[in-house]
């Protein structure tokens, strides 16, 4: 029994830490309707600002606090002014992508400045400890709780009793109406970013001191947990975000108590999916509140697609098919083969996210399912490799659709977050289901890529094979899009209410589209497994899901040609920037930002 008290206290302590992040994310979402993927990076910058102040400059703690808040606030100001404001009036997807680009840039800048090795961030506050249960609670725990509660209180006061606060709430409720009433929406946005980023930076400082540990890789995980916590509590709902964070901490702690440490995150993400499916507004939203979502059809930018004539496409395809004959450099071949593989993933996601409007953030899971399916079929049953890849596509289509099916009734961001969670769940199941997947040891000696018993040995043959598969999948998708089915899918995206009143069964069509898309992703994963000969749970990680989405947005949502071109660019650019060594991810981030800024509908436009 005493242990359960300890588990509860520990859950609340860690929930307390999540709350610091979730509050900032909730505030920004509440006003800007934006999942701020750069929030973790602001948190990172805050941690390092604190490191500079305390360790390098030797400033006292109160001064450090003020400094860190100032740095965070300033950063928020810059992000809002130069990263997001120019994207106003663009579809909601553009700022989302911009925050991803900003987070690349910020993380890289921190890493280049302070090196990648972790650093200590010592604090006297930690050494003052009080007995609680059988463990102790530190003064820092109390400071963290106090900061969380005080900021929530101040926010409440600000939102409820100040004029700017009213403006914030009015903007959150209806941006256009607020603007018509004379609210300076830009000022509101700026204020929100300044507050949230100041808070985010302090969170970085506090968490860094709490663990006496900061490193440049800490931002992604922080964003992930913060997003989960705020969605559990109800997106855009500040008190809800705090409650959701505490609940998340408790669930994780009890999960460890019951099943062991390796199941911790599994619980967090299962909780998320359950909450989303049962109470999509979050646990703490009032029932009558409408879901805070953009109006139908405004999430993805309508634009005039830039269509290449079939003749040009055929010409380019023939030229690409001849490339190995003229220029058989294996490095170029490999890079293009990678691009073709990610092109298949891009086709999959551009159909699901672009044509149907379900923005999936867990697409790497489909690669993983395909990869494991094909590898296991070949390893355990000795099925010939070409056939296993085809089967992997079918298995991925079935399994992927079943896993995501409960989330089909969700819209916009909610669907995205559900798929993010499903992606994490798949990866954790692979890690823990050792009997099937060999857990972290992974699958080795996967038979090499072969077709009808002939091994594809050279880089050229792999190039041709992947290109051929990509072309077949692309042709199928062109066919699908121009058919009656394609029109139905686009109708659902543009106005699901209207589509339903025309008698379209949304779930069934979504499932059909998802299965078609998953098939392509599964094929891509299957080929990859045989190409690599070794995969484990880390081979297809969450970063790949972000990459897939970037490919699709860059190419133009729903655009088949765009997905392939996007893939060639995003796989190719890091290779082109290879000469820049440590700077290449930074350059990549900047290029991404510029693309979003000047071509938000993607290179080829939405279809």
């Amino acid at each position: 029994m005493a242990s359960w008290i300890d588990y509860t206290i520990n859950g609340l302590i860690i929930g307390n830490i999540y709350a610091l992040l979730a509050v900032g994310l909730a505030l920004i979402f509440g006003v800007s309707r934006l999942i701020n993927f750069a929030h973790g990076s602001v948190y990172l910058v805050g941690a390092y600002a604190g490191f500079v102040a305390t360790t390098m400059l030797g400033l006292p703690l109160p001064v450090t606090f003020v400094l860190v808040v100032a740095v965070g606030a300033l950063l928020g100001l810059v992000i809002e002014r130069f990263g997001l404001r120019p994207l106003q009036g663009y579809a909601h997807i553009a700022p989302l992508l911009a925050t991803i680009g900003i987070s690349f840039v910020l993380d890289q800048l921190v890493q280049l400045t302070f090196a990648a090795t972790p650093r200590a961030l010592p604090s006297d506050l930690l050494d003052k400890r009080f007995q609680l249960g059988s463990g102790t609670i530190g003064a820092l725990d109390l400071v963290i709780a106090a900061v969380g509660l005080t900021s929530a209180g101040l926010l409440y006061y600000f939102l409820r009793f100040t004029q700017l606060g009213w403006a914030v709430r009015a903007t959150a409720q209806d941006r256009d109406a607020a603007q018509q009433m004379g609210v300076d929406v830009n000022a509101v946005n700026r204020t929100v970013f300044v507050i949230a980023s100041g808070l985010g930076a302090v969170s970085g400082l506090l968490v860094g001191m709490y663990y006496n540990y900061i490193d440049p890789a800490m931002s992604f995980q922080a964003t992930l947990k913060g997003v989960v916590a705020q969605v559990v509590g109800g997106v855009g709902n500040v008190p809800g975000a705090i409650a959701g964070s505490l609940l998340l901490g408790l669930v994780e702690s009890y999960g460890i108590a019951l099943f062991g440490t390796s199941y911790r995150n599994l619980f967090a993400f299962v909780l998320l999916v359950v909450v989303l499916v049962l109470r999509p507004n979050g646990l703490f939203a009032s029932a009558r509140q409408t879901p805070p979502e953009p109006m139908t059809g405004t999430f993805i930018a309508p634009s005039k697609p830039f269509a290449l004539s079939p003749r040009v496409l055929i010409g380019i395809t023939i030229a690409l098919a001849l490339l190995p004959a003229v220029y058989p450099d294996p490095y170029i071949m490999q890079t293009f083969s990678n691009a073709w593989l990610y092109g298949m993933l891009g086709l999959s996601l551009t159909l699901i996210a672009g044509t149907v409007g379900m923005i999936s953030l867990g697409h790497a899971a489909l690669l993983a399912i395909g990869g494991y399916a094909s590898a296991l079929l070949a390893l355990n049953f000795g099925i010939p490799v070409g056939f296993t890849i085809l089967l992997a596509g079918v298995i991925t289509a079935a399994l992927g659709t079943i896993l995501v099916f409960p989330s089909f009734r969700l819209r916009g961001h909610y669907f995205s977050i559900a798929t993010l969670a499903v992606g994490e769940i798949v990866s954790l199941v692979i890690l823990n289901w050792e009997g099937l997947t060999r857990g972290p040891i992974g699958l080795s000696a996967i038979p090499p890529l072969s077709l009808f018993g002939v091994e594809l040995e050279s880089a050229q043959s792999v190039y041709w094979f992947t290109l051929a598969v990509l072309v077949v999948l692309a042709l199928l998708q062109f066919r699908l899009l121009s058919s009656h089915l394609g029109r139905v899918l686009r109708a659902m995206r543009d106005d699901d209410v209207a589509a339903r009143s025309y008698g379209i069964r949304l779930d069934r069509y979504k499932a059909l589209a998802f299965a078609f898309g998953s098939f392509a992703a599964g094929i891509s994963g299957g080929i990859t497994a045989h190409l690599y000969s070794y995969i484990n749970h880390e081979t297809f990680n969450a970063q790949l899901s972000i990459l897939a989405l970037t490919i699709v947005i860059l190419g133009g949502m729903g655009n088949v040609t765009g997905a392939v071109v996007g893939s060639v660019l995003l796989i190719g650019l890091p290779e082109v920037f290879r000469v820049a060594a440590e700077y290449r991810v930074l350059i990549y981030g900047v290029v991404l930002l510029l693309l979003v800024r000047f071509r938000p509908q993607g290179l080829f436009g939405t279809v």
Partner: protein
Amino acid sequence: MSVFNRRQFVGGSAALLAAASLPAHAEPAKGEPVTMGVSGPLTGPNAQYGTQWKQGFDLALDQINAAGGIKGRPLAYVFEDSQSDPRQAVAVAQKFVADKKIVVELGDFASPASMAASPIYQKAKLVQFGFTNSHPDFTKGGDYMWSNSVSQADEQPLSAAYAVKTLGLKKIAVLHLNTDWGRTSKDIFIKAAKDYGAEIVAVEGYIPDEKDFRSTLVRVRDAKPDGLMLLSYYSDAALIARQVKQAGIKLPLVAASSVYSPKLIELGGESVEGLFTASRYFPDDPRPTVKSFVAAFKAKYNKEPDAFNAYAYDTVILMGQVMNQFGFEREQIHQGLAKVKDVPSVIFGKATFDTATRRVSGAMNVELVVKDGRFQLHEGSIATR
């Protein structure tokens, strides 16, 4: 922004980088350099390890090139950033195998990246030297996959002996990184500890991103162990030690040699005081190889080397000797690795490959304890094989 400016910027930074990786005083070695390809993380979540590699490499290159290089030519390396991501590692592999200048490849860091690239190196008959790849299947990828990483089959029985025989632990709780390395280590450690007569009362695997261990420690405490075994890297070991102290658990901590780094003490502070660990070498080690390595490292970087610095250093020294003895053509290096004997090594004392497994066995072992904020020899232990 104009294309011209970007090119300038890219070109400029490339030149800077090239200047940084050139050996500091290479007068004795002249001419066209003999180039090794390195595939490893310089950006991304594992970037810190790539940075540590470079320090070890550069130090070894300084020494080799000052002593005449490879048959009079300077030894150098090209570091291609893979972010330890399999997709980029295979592209880098194709680049290296096609580049006739590259005579041997070192890396990658993590097994998914290294082993994804193995088929390419194997087909092209370019040695892939995975010096941090302890995955038991790595060298099974083909006869061009070699490794001098310390095999866990070698190390973990020593850890178990330290915990059970030297320290007298009878009921051990094991916390391990849930990665291929941690999983392999855990299985071997548990088997060895049981053979020595200890009981394993709890086993908890955690993912590398984990920072909060409070609830895990409640679970561990309830299993009533008389000691904790950490199969961790230094960063997570420091986090665990800190939270052990905060949870009020007063049990001895034993950690695998992978925590041996000045960073453990920096990050762990007082909470790692009394932590038992082992190392392949020790700064006050009387062995001349270690003495010169530690002294030169301190002189160049003004800090103590850690395990990854030592692996990287050892590897380049080894390659230098193989090339000087057997030639620096790709195939000569492949043959040379099988023939080379007793290369002076910080990690192994003297390194000789087992030609069946293409690994080196018999790593040195020193039992250490953290005392007064530094690693010190554990009472009564001496550097032994």
